[in-house]
Structure formats: structure tokens, C-alpha cells
């Protein structure tokens, strides 16, 4: 029997978001019982994050147009939960070939694997602005979690600033929930959206949903500006955010009063574990960032290590579900197990459409790398340790550090609590602009273990 033979294969999935859950489902259907390790206490990842017990908002209120997908993923997980080896609240903080290092409730343990599927997701992608270290500035994804998971607004008057589809989604969710949205400020000019239309039309339904968000904001009389240049988050160290200063597309300086700012420029992948596993990385020209080099099925350059979802390639939640199924089929194929070729082709076709849409989004809402050049010397790049753009530029000019890791060693940009998640990409842009080279030429910050801070009191337990 396939199941009996397969039980000798230790297949470990990291992350219980849309990619991880669909991967587990597909493996289980083929007779493999995967181990699903997740840092969160509940399944769903960030996008389909579940609200705590005792909360009563229904799926439609919580997830809007994505309610059916969220419900289906949660129900799938509920069915799987008893049949797979599910380990929530467990951080994978390092790995060696064939073994993961895990931490759960202050205890360290190891976990052996034959095949490892990284479904580690993404975080917000940030470009600093003067004053972004002030209390009351949150990542855009963070602003969404506050509402979705806790039913709170991050402030009494919130400015949404940055670019990308999430900007409009979260702003319209705030409006719908009764929050006061002071303004939506998009750095991308509207004309780019029209230019990207042929690619965006790969998914007309999603394009329509995006247009509805904009219409909702318009009906709620929320001021929206396109092609803005963010100048400063206003406020002071003691009281935090008091407003935002920016110039409009036509060059007019505007100040908006607010006590909170949600800031973000689409997403960046969590690649640290793949990096530590020795997987090759590739520079994606369209989004101007590094991610794991994989084949179309999700195989990395390292045998037995796979990646799917936004942790591999930023294509959104729908693509993550397809990529999770697709990568599971690749694992089965590599383990010389029978797999459903029809299902593989279906996933592949769906992913091709989503790739096209992804390129459209990258054109419509480009990463504003050029902002780094204009960042004043006094602006904080590393908000963990309060290191300025001027200090980083000095490491380039005075110490000749034109490579990200070298500049990190001199300046500490990327060495703080967040381990470069929120400063490293912008830091690379600052270095590249100062050195007068392309951003891909200054390298990328290497993943380091532990991938998140661990307590010194962590206790080792035998597996």
C-alpha cells in the first residue's frame, strides 16, 4: 500500500497559510502524512488569519469579496487537522541539511526531514520616510491585522500611504468598518494603471474588485491622491504621529492631519530559511527584489527543498493555493510516487494567468526605489536602532562599503530586532544610489540564524 511505504518519508511544511494548507491537503490525499509547522497559534497565515475565539463577525464582514475562499481554506484545514502532524506556535529558527531547529513555548527541539516545503509567506515591503519611526506608524498589513483580528483601527484618523493593491483594500475595509480614513496617498501615478491594463486583464474579476475599492473610497469622500511624493510623517518622539506631509502629482505641498499612518509598498518574501538552506536566489526585475530561484513547480536549487506561496514568489493568496498544490505534486513526483498529472496541468495553467497579473501589478504599482536617493540624511533607515540615511551613506563614501552585508557590518542597518525585514531593501537602494550602481549590484542581506530573536532562557529537549 502506498500509505505504508510513504510513511518512511518525512515531509515537513513550514507555514499554515493558503500555500501550506493546500500543500498538506494534496500530500494527504496521495497518502503522505505531512508535518505542518506554523509559527502562529491558528492556521490561515496572515491573509486568512482567524479571529480569536469569542469574536462574532461573520466571514463576509471579515474577508469581504474573499469570504468564500477564506471559509473554504479554514474548513479544509479543520478536516486535515486530525489527520496530519500539526505543530502550531512553533518557530523554525534555523536549519541544517535534513534537520530543522524549532522553538515552541520556550523549548528548542529538532525535526528531521526528507523533503521540506517552505510556505513562509511575506511581510510588507517598506520604503522609509522622514519620521516613520514615530509611534502610530504601522505597516499596511499590520493595519489590516488590527482590524481583521482585533476589530480595532490603528488610530482615530488614519492615512494610508504607499502603493499596491493592498493600499486600497485595507483603506476600503477601514471605511466599511466605520474608521476615519484621512487620505489615501499612492506614489504610483494613475496613468501606469492604464498602461498595465492589458496584463491586469488576465484576471478581470480581480481588476473589477480593485475598481470597486476605489469607488467605495470615492463614495465615502476619502481624499485620494496618485503619483504623490511622501515627504514626512509629522509628530514628536513623545506623542507620536500628528500628520503626513507630501507633494501631489502636480507638485503641490500638502499636509494632512492624522494620528496614524499605514505605510507599505506591496510585499517582500520571507526567504531566510531557504537562504540558510543554501538555495540559490534570483533578482526579479519586475518587482526589483531578490527571491528564491525555483522552477515552475517550486523546486529550489537544493535537492529536497521546495518553496510555494508568497514566500517564494509574490503572486497573492489565490496563486498561493495553486502553488501549494503544485509543489505537493512535485514532491510526490520526486519521491517516485504516483501523482495526478491532470491536477498538475490545471495548477500550472492557473499560475500562468496569475504570473501575467503579477507583472501587471508590478507595472501599475512600482516599487519607488528612487525615493531612497531623495531621502534626507536625517531620515531614519533602520527604525529598530535609529540609524539614519546619512550614517549609511557615510559607510559607502568613507569606508567604501558598496555591498549590503558589508555596509550592515559598519552601519548596523539590518542588524536590529527586525533583522533587516523592514530596512534592508531600502538600505540597498540608499547604498546603490550613493555608489551610483544598480540595486542588484549591491547584493542582498544574507539570512542569519536565528531567523527571529530567541530567548536566552530557551531550554533544549530531546526529540
Amino acid at each position, binding site marked *: 500500500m502506498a500509505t505504508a511505504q510513504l510513511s518512511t518519508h518525512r515531509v515537513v511544511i513550514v507555514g499554515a497559510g493558503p500555500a501550506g494548507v493546500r500543500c498538506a491537503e494534496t500530500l494527504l490525499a496521495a497518502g503522505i502524512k505531512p508535518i505542518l509547522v506554523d509559527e502562529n497559534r491558528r492556521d490561515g497565515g496572515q491573509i486568512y488569519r482567524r479571529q480569536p475565539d469569542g469574536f462574532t*463577525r461573520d466571514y463576509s464582514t471579515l474577508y469581504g469579496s474573499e469570504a468564500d475562499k477564506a471559509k473554504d481554506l479554514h474548513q479544509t484545514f479543520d478536516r486535515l487537522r486530525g489527520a496530519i502532524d500539526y505543530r502550531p506556535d512553533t518557530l523554525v529558527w534555523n536549519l541544517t541539511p535534513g534537520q530543522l531547529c524549532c522553538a515552541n513555548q520556550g523549548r528548542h527541539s529538532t525535526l528531521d526531514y526528507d523533503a521540506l516545503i517552505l510556505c513562509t509567506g511575506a511581510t510588507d515591503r517598506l520604503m522609509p520616510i522622514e519620521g516613520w519611526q514615530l509611534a502610530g506608524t504601522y505597516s499596511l498589513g499590520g493595519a489590516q491585522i488590527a482590524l481583521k483580528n482585533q476589530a*480595532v483601527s490603528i488610530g482615530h484618523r488614519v492615512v494610508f500611504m504607499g502603493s499596491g493593491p493592498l493600499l486600497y483594500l485595507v483603506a476600503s475595509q477601514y471605511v466599511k468598518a466605520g474608521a476615519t480614513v484621512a487620505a489615501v496617498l499612492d506614489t504610483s501615478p494613475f496613468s501606469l494603471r492604464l498602461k498595465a491594463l492589458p496584463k491586469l486583464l488576465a484576471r478581470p474579476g480581480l481588476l473589477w474588485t480593485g475598481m470597486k475599492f476605489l469607488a467605495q473610497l470615492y463614495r465615502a469622500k476619502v481624499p485620494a491622491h496618485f503619483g504623490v511624493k511622501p515627504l514626512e510623517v509629522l509628530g514628536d518622539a513623545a506623542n507620536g504621529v500628528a500628520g503626513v506631509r507630501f507633494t501631489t502629482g502636480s507638485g503641490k505641498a500638502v499636509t494632512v492631519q492624522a494620528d496614524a499612518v499605514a505605510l507599505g509598498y506591496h510585499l517582500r518574501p520571507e526567504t531566510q530559511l531557504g537562504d540558510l538552506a543554501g538555495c540559490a536566489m534570483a533578482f526579479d526585475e519586475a518587482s526589483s527584489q531578490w527571491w528564491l530561484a525555483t522552477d515552475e513547480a517550486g523546486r529550489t536549487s537544493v535537492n529536497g527543498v521546495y518553496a510555494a506561496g508568497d514566500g517564494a514568489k509574490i503572486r497573492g493568496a489565490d496563486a498561493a493555493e495553486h502553488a501549494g498544490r503544485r509543489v505537493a505534486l512535485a514532491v510526490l513526483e520526486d519521491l517516485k510516487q504516483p501523482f495526478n498529472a491532470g491536477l498538475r496541468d490545471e495548477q500550472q495553467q492557473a499560475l500562468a494567468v496569475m504570473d501575467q497579473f503579477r507583472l501587471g501589478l508590478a507595472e501599475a504599482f512600482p516599487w519607488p526605489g528612487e525615493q531612497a536617493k531623495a531621502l534626507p540624511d536625517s531620515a531614519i533607515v533602520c527604525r529598530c536602532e*535609529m540609524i539614519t540615511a546619512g550614517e549609511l551613506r557615510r559607510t559607502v563614501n568613507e569606508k567604501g562599503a558598496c555591498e549590503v552585508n558589508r555596509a550592515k557590518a559598519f552601519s548596523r542597518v539590518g542588524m536590529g530586532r527586525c533583522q533587516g525585514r523592514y530596512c534592508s531593501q531600502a538600505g540597498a537602494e540608499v547604498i546603490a544610489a550613493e555608489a551610483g550602481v544598480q540595486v542588484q549590484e549591491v547584493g542582498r542581506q544574507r539570512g542569519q540564524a536565528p531567523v527571529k530573536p530567541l530567548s536566552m532562557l530557551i531550554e533544549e529537549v530531546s526529540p
Partner: protein
Amino acid sequence: MKGRFLRLAEQGRPTVNLTVDGAPVEALQGDTLMVALLTQGTALRQSEFDSGRRAGFCLMGACQDCWVWTRSGERLRACSNEVRDGLDIVTTQPEATWPLHS
């Protein structure tokens, strides 16, 4: 400003009583520590590098900006830990700080 965060729904939950810096704080069951503290105050902690107050950033356990501590010295991410009755929270870092930019 009384609180930084504003509750928009789900306000019918049972209350939970905890202590923050020695003062009693009433929160709702299912609140994260972050929501419990920021619906009643404007910050979670003092930056260890400058005079700034900090109130978290990512809410998904990635930025580590929202650390608070238990009275016994255990470090908690305020965004990813829920309130419990009797929890005794301290918002001052027990370890050394580096106020380089103050």
C-alpha cells in the same frame, strides 16, 4: 488622546483584568496585549536607542517593535500574546539600553 487604537466592533466580550506597570488595566477576552495597552494608552515601551516612544509596527511578529515584559522578566511580543487575568506586565526593558541618540 486617551488611546491610540480605537475599537470598532466586538465589544461585548467578557472583561479580563491585568496589571500594567503596577496599575490595574481592564481588557476584553481575546485582546492581544497590544490592543489592551493601546486602547488605553499611546505607546507600549520606550525605545532603547533614543527618546522615542514605541507602539509596534507590523502586528505579525516580524518587527519585534512591540516587546513588553512580565514582572518576572519574560519577554513577550505584545502583538501575538493574548491577555489573561492576573498578567503582570512591565513596559520598561529590564536589560541595559543604549540611548545613543537621546
